[in-house]
């Protein structure tokens, strides 16, 4: 039985992790040392947070632009309320859709309630992919727009999970 971390140690651990995982061979030992705990306690806490869904994975944030993913499209659709779950689930599962969210309409300025992010290396490919998606899911008749990004002013690594995008919406 491994003793749980104290509340204070938990907060300290969260704060340490905001800077990312220490890049050493035994990162949880390094974290344990910083918060005055044992590495088993830190690992147990990490597993607990992971099971609770506080974080999905110990993973990375890509500078997608630096990697050539410069075509960043936000597809927005005006889906009747009764259909939005169905369409959202289908588009969310579709290949190439990185994020799919329902958001509120703001009439009269904004009518669209479903948002999908599609990224690629070339704009023409992303455009064609979106056309295919709309056709396959019989969504061409719904009011929709595709908003390409032309410049990223800020994309910080972020201390928190997306969005991204939301990055991409999240951004």
């Amino acid at each position: 039985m491994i003793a749980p971390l104290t509340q204070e140690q938990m907060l300290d651990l969260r704060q340490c992790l905001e800077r990312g995982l220490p890049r050493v061979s035994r990162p949880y030992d390094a974290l344990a040392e910083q918060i005055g705990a044992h590495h088993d306690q830190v690992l147990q806490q990490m597993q607990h947070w992971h099971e609770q869904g506080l974080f999905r994975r110990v993973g990375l944030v890509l500078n997608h632009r630096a990697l050539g993913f410069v075509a960043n499209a936000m597809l927005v659709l005006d889906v009747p309320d009764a259909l939005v779950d169905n369409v959202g689930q289908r588009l969310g599962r579709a290949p190439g859709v990185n994020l799919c969210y329902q958001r509120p309409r703001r009439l009269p300025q904004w009518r669209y309630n479903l948002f999908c992010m599609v990224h690629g290396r070339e704009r023409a490919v992303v455009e064609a992919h979106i056309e295919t998606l709309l056709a396959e899911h019989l969504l061409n008749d719904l009011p929709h727009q595709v908003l390409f990004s032309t410049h990223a002013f800020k994309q910080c690594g972020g201390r928190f999970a997306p969005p991204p995008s939301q990055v991409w919406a999240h951004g």
Partner: protein
Amino acid sequence: MDERDRQLINRLQHGLPLVRQPWQSVAQELGCAPGEVLDRLHALLEDGVLTRFGPMFDIERVGGAFTLAALTVPEARFDAVAEQLNALPQVAHNYRREHAWNMWFVLACASPEELDATLSRIETLSGLTVLNLPKEHTYHVGLHFPV
């Protein structure tokens, strides 16, 4: 960036195992030494190919608040308003998009109150009305970039 870097990035997008020596298993999968994996990760972060490595906490599960918002910024003031927004630590992303709503940004705040205050602050700073579009339902989050 070489083939091994690409393999490493693709592998790490799936996450690091929660074990005491996580780099050993990754190195084994990639067929190299754990030290080399760490050196490569370090270089990719230094070069700006990666912007972060570690767990990303779901801000809403820890009491925080997110939103996606937009502004219609007059062309002549576009860069100035972008600078105003980017100076705010709550602005996580800010993109110019081809639309009448031409500036799209994500706010990541420690609390719903901070989010409201930040939206008001942006309206005061810019003199513009914010289109606030917090998510109501998530159908899919899966940012994966095969490199």
